């Protein structure tokens, strides 16, 4: 049961790794998950997920500064079940805090892949949408959803925490409605995403999927 390795024949190449490193990383392909067979259970699960949003404490851009006030007395995101989590394993929400430089993108991908599904991505600010003021920067990606699926955009430069709270509540609604399937989307279009990622990230020294 614990040694379940699915689709062993369809493994990833992990060509970014040396031969020696190949054996140190898993080469399994990520798997999409189905909703629970019983609708009520799935709804209940979605309700629980929506009301317990654990945000990965990874400030990826200038927007990270807007995340901090969320926990303060003024905004108190705890009310909505939002909490910060220092490890991607336990987080369910990844807030892309504004522009994503290529260097950061690599780390974002890695952390995202280490999160366990269902997982949600909020793109904060205008930069993940079209590059914003960094649209012609040599080291910033312009369309973030080319690289990872985004469940919710909160535009602005920078959006204030109020907007972020509003966005979180919007995300909760989407989750409850069962519309947030970014994780499955990523798995289903894995090769496309991966080739996009590899196009911009030149020094690809990690496995194709960071389990």
């Amino acid at each position, binding site marked *: 049961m614990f040694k379940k390795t699915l689709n062993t024949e369809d493994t990833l190449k992990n060509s970014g790794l040396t031969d020696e490193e190949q054996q*140190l990383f898993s080469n399994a392909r990520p798997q999409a998950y189905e909703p629970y067979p019983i609708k009520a259970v799935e709804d209940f699960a979605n309700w629980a997920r929506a009301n317990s949003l654990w945000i990965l404490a990874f400030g990826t851009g200038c927007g990270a500064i807007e995340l901090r006030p969320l926990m303060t007395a003024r905004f108190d995101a705890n009310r909505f079940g939002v909490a910060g989590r220092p490890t991607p394993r336990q987080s369910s929400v990844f807030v892309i805090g504004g522009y994503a430089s290529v260097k950061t993108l690599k780390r974002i991908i890695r952390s995202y892949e280490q999160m366990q599904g269902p997982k949600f991505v909020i793109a904060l600010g205008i930069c993940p949408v079209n590059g914003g003021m960094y649209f012609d920067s040599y080291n910033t990606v312009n369309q973030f959803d080319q690289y990872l699926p985004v469940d919710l955009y909160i535009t602005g430069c920078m959006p204030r925490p109020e907007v972020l709270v509003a966005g979180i509540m919007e995300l909760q609604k989407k989750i409850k409605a069962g519309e947030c399937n970014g994780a499955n989307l990523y798995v289903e279009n894995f090769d496309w995403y991966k080739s996009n990622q590899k196009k911009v990230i030149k020094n690809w020294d990690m496995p194709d999927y960071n*389990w």
Partner: protein
Amino acid sequence: MVATTDTIDIFLQPLGIYILALGVGFLIPLVYRVNRNSAILVFFTALLIMIVIAGLNLLAIINGASVMDIETAGIKPPFSINLRFGLFEGACVLAVNTVALLGAWHYLPRLKQHAAALLLYLILVMGINGMVMTRDLFNLFIFIEITSIATYALIGMERTAKGLAAGFKYIMATSIASAFYLLGTIFIYYQTGTLNIDDIIANQQLIIGPIGFIATLFILTGLLIELKPYPANGWGLDVYETAPGGIASLISVGVSAGVFFALYKVLPIMDLYLTSIAFIGGFTFLISNFIGLKQENTKRLLGYSSIGQMGLLTLVIALLVQLDASAHIPLIIGGLFINHLFAKAGLFWLAAIVDRKNIKDWSSIAKHPSLLILLCILLTALVGLPPFPGFWAKWELVMLLASEQLFGWITLILIGSLLEAVYLFRWFSYARNVESSESVEKPAEVSVSFLQQIPIFITGLLLFAIAYVMSRFMNVDNQLIYFPLMAGFAIWLIDRLNVRVKSLIMLLAVSIGGYFLTKDLEGINKLFSYLLIGGGILVSFATLYRHDDRKGFYPLLSVLLLSLATLLRAQTSLEFFFAWELMALSSYLLVMLGRNKQNCDPGIRLGNDQKNDQKYNQINAIKPALIYLLFSLASAYFILVGFAVSYSATGNYFLFSLGDSGTSTTLAFSLLAIGFIIKIGGFGLHIWLPEVYAEADDDFTAILSSVVSKAGIFGLIIIAAHLGVRADIGLNPAYVLGWIGILTATFGALMAVFQEDIKRLVAYSSMGQLGYIVTGVALMSHLGWVSAMYMTVNHFLFKGILFLSVAGVILRTNERFMYKMGGLIKNMPVTFTFTMIAIIAMSGVPPLSGYGGKWMFFNALMDKGWYWIAALAFFSSAVAFLYMFRLLQTVFLGQRKLEHRKLREAPVILLIPQGILIAIIFVISAYPKILIDVISTAIDPWISNTLVWKGTAMQAHYGYWDAPLIMAIIAGAWIAPLILLLLFAKTMKVQKVEQFNIVYAAERPRRPEETHFAYNFYAHYDRAIGFVVRPRATAFWNAVIEWTHSFAASLRIFYNGNGQTYALFIIMYFVGLFLVNGGLAL
């Protein structure tokens, strides 16, 4: 004309020795001219006949013939010179002649080059015979001079520069000594009018006034100087160092024997000086052995040992005469003397044929098993380990001295013996060292023919034979004490067989032997027999995992295991001590077989910088083995004195009468307890333990820790039972013992926390666990003892598992540092599981068996009111978690090294015993009543049973404990969430990932080495309380060693090599004796 038979009869009289020596001696040069070989034949025939004469006459005396007084010149003494051939004389002459014959054999290549050499040799032997037999004071002088001149000439024949220089010093010294003797003789004659010793003794009232005083002093000084007392002995040492082995051996044992016998003869007129003689002897013994520590020249080393031994003999004879205990002379003096005679002679010959000047170069014999065995036998004999004569003699001596309350002398003798063991066995260590040698150019391999070894081999055999005879004389009826040795010998005979075959034969033999040895036991002994013999065989089974042929391992292992069996059987303290020493010896040799053979200096400096692995890897088992032997000997000496104290009170050797020791009980108990504590590795005396456990063979460490250490516990329980409970001594020694135990536990645990080396970690852990047991025994209550025994069984179980699994890990990884391992659970899941279970059992976490021990232990501590000890015990068991987790984490969990990815599971042979032990752990965990009932019945004869059972629950004054129920509840509490988790896992897609698939702060790990958190694991703990575990004990013992060596170095400043200084010392010796004995007052 006399009939032929009469001629032979007369010829076979002791006088025949002289006739033969002189007659044949002067014939030899003639024959030599005709034919060299026939001269040699004549020479040997003469020596042989001398032995036969001595032997036949001795036999006659033993068979009841009266003491033979041989008169010369047809006139009765005192008007003529007479010789005496009694029991002592006969034995001495026979022994000396035997050594002379063997020595001649050894020295033949050199002897046969000159007819004069053959002649001188014969004259020398005859001189010694004369010194022993003559009863005439002046005749004695003549024989001394004959011997001396022959010696001078033989020394002079070796025309080396050093030899000649030493020879001249020797002549100067001995001629002054004999001048003294001659002067003394004359004055004695002046006062008594006779030269016959018997007459002089009869008329000793005539030896009075200043003249009598000076006369006896002259004689005494002359003889003592010949025995080379410190510091007037530099000349003797120079000769030992430079003379060829054949001659040095004869001077060391033959001439000394003659002079010693002469001293013995004149002792009756030396009443005044007995104390001085004793002090001189003791002083010389102690100081020589001190200085021996600094000595690296092989033959000079033997010289120091030789002088020391003669000092000991002098001391003992003076004491015996003073105590009027001449009945003990044959056993004590005889035993020590024969021991010295054969062992020392053999060693001198061995030194000669190996021909390595510096003891550090003796590694050239490391590949010669026969030479090594010979060296080992002779050294063992010299140090006085069983079964050799020295052992019996030392036992008798200590018992006698103790019954006379002469503990100062006992201390001196034992310290001296220990020092002697240090340098002798250090020599053996160098010899055993395979690579070695500090000298720049590597010494060539030794080539020794088989023939050359025969004389040495014969001395070894003779030592065994005499030892056996001695044990018969000492009324050791129980011949079974020799069984381990015989079994070991038998196994040794098949040592050439395939390793599998011989190990199976060994296991079978030990099983059968052990069964028959232990089947009649009962009580505590029976319990321990299961543990030591059954457990020993079970753990020994794991030794099969090795494929190399392990020469010597199985014979020694069988000796070890069977000596444990005889230890359990022992009815008397002598049998106990015999088995104990045998166990120490065999385990020392087994430790020395440790495999890790790299170049190192096997000095006795302790400790090492464990953080510095480069240096560390160069250590092999030899140095720890030596330390182990020394601590074992120290432990044995404490035990010896403890038994002696008890013997002085009770007058017999039976263990069950230990309890009647009366007022000596506390002292005896303390001494014995110290002895056993050393063996267990108690606080402060533990430094040998980690080193030995770390460096011994991995499978043997398992035996050492799980089985052999229990012998110490057994001893402790036995003395606690006999001395502690029955005699009902005051609490104080037991309370101190309790503290020692708990400090051992605490510091063992703390030390283990900071180890990087897996074996050291487990070793310290073992030490810590034994600490609880010691405290448990010290409790002297029923519950305390049950807990102690229960923990003993547990300790056997989990330490067996741990060391065997560690052996498996080391076998596979070829590493001992934990930070170089990691993640091995993937390769060795079974080993991991066993280790984990053992560790849970050890930690005392319910439901496994360790909890029961801890529970009973705490209840017993609370019952007794030892609250502080209880608190410390609690602390140390918490600290234990640190190292236990570290062991599992850094070896089996965490990141696996790249080079370890292909490792296989440990061999099945290692896993089988572990599996069996695990099964036992589970049975005991679930139904501890099985074990506790057995323990309780064993203890009931000593302390009345206080255990209360309510169904499966055990009740104590404070608490209660229901093991099966606990087991069931915990199983339930464990299984329920597991099922829950498995159910939820069904709803998920669970991906098994690899070791680098971890959250790494959005980065990826680069190397397992960087990612595995293992080195200096408890750095923070070290920062917090590390200061309490800085190796103070090691530093202390190193300081002791350093100090001893410096002291030894300062003691030998007198030996400046100048013959005149030596002559001055001789004169000052006389002056000193004169002043000390009140010369000015006369």
